[in-house]
């Protein structure tokens, strides 16, 4: 594992993007956090709001996974596993929320 | 063998195998008592046979761990053992104390044994797996302290590797947690706490460290993979094992008078306990796939891979089956527990001890590996024992599911003994699988005596 990656690494251009890209992503993440916080402060609720909250969480998670963790350029299995985890967790939270509404 | 003092491992391994044979004989007797209730009655009633079966298991595994340590530590520390004489002395003390204890179980009633050995001074007897008389318990502590002293001193004067540090952590943990067995509070909930802090923290905590260290040592030797790579896996495995295992103790706290949050903590963390075992499986296969040499001891590689797979199945999958609180509500103490116990102990601890024996025994007998014929015999033993253990587990699982259904889930639950009659067929099948296991064990013993051209020992 190590041997092939260090040699491949010397040849490749960056796996970790550019500073500008990282900074733009940071700004998006912070803005998304402020949206989530203001939803909480406003006290609004309901399936649409919860859908919005977890869509935001999913988007933020995807940015972290693909860019900050640099899985965008990893063998496909790895980003798929991480994004699959996000999808599954968010979906099950959604189902549980739905169940709570019906009860 | 690189250091002459490693040879003290030999008597430990021989004793381990001898006690293993005893364990299986009592296992077969109990298997028969399940269906022929008065077999050997009144000489060896079921409760005594069961106690001997489980105690022999623990004692021979401890012999195996100690032998493994005496073999492994000098080689890792690159120095002779601090005191081979002390190691041999402790061997005889432990063997005689162990034999006397087993004879005590068999020859006198348990209550008489308790009176004879000072249980009225400090009551420690009567708890499952910790039935040993006070004197034996004290003996175990003395042997363990002398053993740890010997090993720690050896390590202090030599090279300190991650493998030997993890092994030592496991062994110190084993000794320290055993001290909980001396406290037997009257309050039943507290009593369960202290009992599980020995039993659970052993098998789902520190024993996993010992197992991972032994497995890592053998894998380095047979695959030639860089130590650095193996050490990284070891860090991952022990962290996962400790976090899930320590908090996972909560799966023993359901509905016994503990706060209800244990149902959540115990369920979630113990549900994650398969992960370190899965890591060990991936680790073993990964290392063997990346091997840099073809070690002549093929049998040892087979045992090592078998440990990875069977530990994950037995401890991981079969543990998970009944660890969630809502499931355990129905399955607690049924034959499903017995199924899990059999495959977990075999897959994790029996196999890891047989792995190190398979690797070390030829070296201790002055050759790199046994002859082709002897190895083939040993591999037959592996498959016979492993496959029959899979069947024992499956039959007990089937028995357990039926038992839970008839006795606990059904709208018209049947009494315990009536249910036992209903599932007798599975007990018979389990007994026959046990006979095959015994045949595998005989094959294993035979493999030590098969002659043939063995590989000479070459120091690389």
């Amino acid at each position, binding site marked *: 594992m190590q041997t092939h990656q260090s040699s491949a690494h010397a040849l490749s*251009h960056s796996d970790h993007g550019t500073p500008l890209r990282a900074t733009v992503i940071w700004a998006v993440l912070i803005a998304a956090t402020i949206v989530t916080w203001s939803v909480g402060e406003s006290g609004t609720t309901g399936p649409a709001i919860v859908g919005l909250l977890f869509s935001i969480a999913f988007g933020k998670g995807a940015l972290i996974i693909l860019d*900050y963790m640099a899985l965008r350029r990893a063998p496909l299995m790895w980003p798929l596993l991480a994004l699959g*985890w996000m999808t599954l967790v968010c979906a099950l939270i959604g189902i549980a929320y739905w169940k*709570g509404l019906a009860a | 063998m690189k250091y002459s003092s490693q040879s003290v491992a030999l008597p430990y391994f021989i004793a381990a195998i001898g006690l293993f044979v005893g364990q299986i004989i009592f296992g077969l007797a109990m298997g028969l008592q399940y269906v022929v209730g008065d077999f050997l009655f009144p000489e060896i009633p079921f409760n005594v046979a069961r106690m001997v079966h489980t105690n022999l298991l623990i004692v021979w595994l401890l012999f195996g761990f100690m032998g493994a340590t005496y073999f492994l530590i000098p080689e890792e520390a690159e120095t002779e053992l601090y005191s081979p004489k002390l190691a041999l002395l402790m061997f005889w003390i432990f063997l005689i104390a162990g034999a006397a204890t087993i004879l005590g179980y068999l020859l006198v009633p348990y209550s008489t044994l308790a009176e004879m050995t000072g249980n009225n001074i400090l009551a420690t007897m009567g708890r499952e797996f910790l039935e040993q008389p006070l004197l034996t318990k004290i003996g175990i502590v003395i042997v363990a302290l002398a053993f740890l002293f010997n090993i720690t001193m050896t390590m202090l004067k030599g090279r300190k590797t991650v493998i030997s540090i993890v092994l030592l952590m496991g062994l110190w943990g084993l000794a320290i947690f055993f001290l909980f067995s001396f406290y037997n509070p009257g309050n039943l909930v507290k009593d369960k706490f202290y009992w599980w802090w020995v039993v659970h923290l052993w098998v789902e905590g520190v024993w996993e460290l010992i197992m991972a260290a032994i497995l890592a040592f053998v894998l380095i030797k047979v695959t030639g993979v860089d130590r650095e790579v193996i050490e990284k896996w070891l860090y991952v495995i022990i962290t996962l094992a400790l976090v899930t295992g320590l908090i996972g103790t909560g799966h023993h706290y359901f509905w016994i008078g503990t706060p209800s*949050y244990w149902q959540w903590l115990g369920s979630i963390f113990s549900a994650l306990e398969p992960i370190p075992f899965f890591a060990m499986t991936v680790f073993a296969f990964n290392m063997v796939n990346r091997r840099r040499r073809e070690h002549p001891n093929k049998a040892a590689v087979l045992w090592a891979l078998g440990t990875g797979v069977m530990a994950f199945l037995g401890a991981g999958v079969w543990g998970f089956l009944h660890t969630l609180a809502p499931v355990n509500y129905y399955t607690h103490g049924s034959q499903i527990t017995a199924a899990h116990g059999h495959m977990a102990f075999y897959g994790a601890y029996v196999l890891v001890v047989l792995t190190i024996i398979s690797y070390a025994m030829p070296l201790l007998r002055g050759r790199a590996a046994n002859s082709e014929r002897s190895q083939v015999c040993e591999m037959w033993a592996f498959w016979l024992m492993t496959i029959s253990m899979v069947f024992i587990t499956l039959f007990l699982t089937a028995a357990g599911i039926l038992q839970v259904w008839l006795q606990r889930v059904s709208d018209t639950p049947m009494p315990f003994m009536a249910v036992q009659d209903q599932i007798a067929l599975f007990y018979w099948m389990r007994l026959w699988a046990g006979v095959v296991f015994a045949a595998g064990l005989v094959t294993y013993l035979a493999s030590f005596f098969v002659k043939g051209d063995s590989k000479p020992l070459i120091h690389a």
Partner: protein
Amino acid sequence: MNTCVQTLVSPPPSLRAVPSDGPARRLPGDLAIWFFILAELLAFGAFFIAYAFARANNVELFNEQQLALDRNAGAINTILLLTSSYFVVRAVQAAEASQGRRAAMWIAGGIACGAGFIVVKLFEYAAKFEAGVSLSSSTFHMFYLVLTFFHFMHVILGLVILAALWNNARRGRYGPGSMNGIETGAAYWHMVDLVWLILFPLVYVMR
């Protein structure tokens, strides 16, 4: 088993396809840490789902007690973790550009934000304990404490790892040819951030 493990360890050629525009696909950092990260994600995932379904059976209690949580502290901590992650990305980029010492400064920034998270969390816990919140006071409180504390321990471990990275970076041990250590540590720190991104809306906001 054998083939399945091989797949896990070195994906089959189909999954390793070389993107037409660039070099071969590569997993940053050590395989062992990624295995560990997956195990961690599984653990947090199990907790999140358990929380969600426990809430579904007790919506009023969860909604009422959630209102008493300090959402400002939660949001500030989200921002601290995200910023910390950003600094660590900049550190990795600096190391990749042969600027090892600058990488150390970025990591120090990451550590400062992580330490800020710890401080905010400790104030939050102090207020909660004052108010009589405990593991046994309610199912919601149990989940709130266990989930956030489990995460809290991960932040502490992550900070220890970052401190080791900082020390190595300061000594110039990271560069284009030796990225394994810093990538491994960074991946773990981002995981700590990632799980908080679900924890915050789930425990502090969703009702």
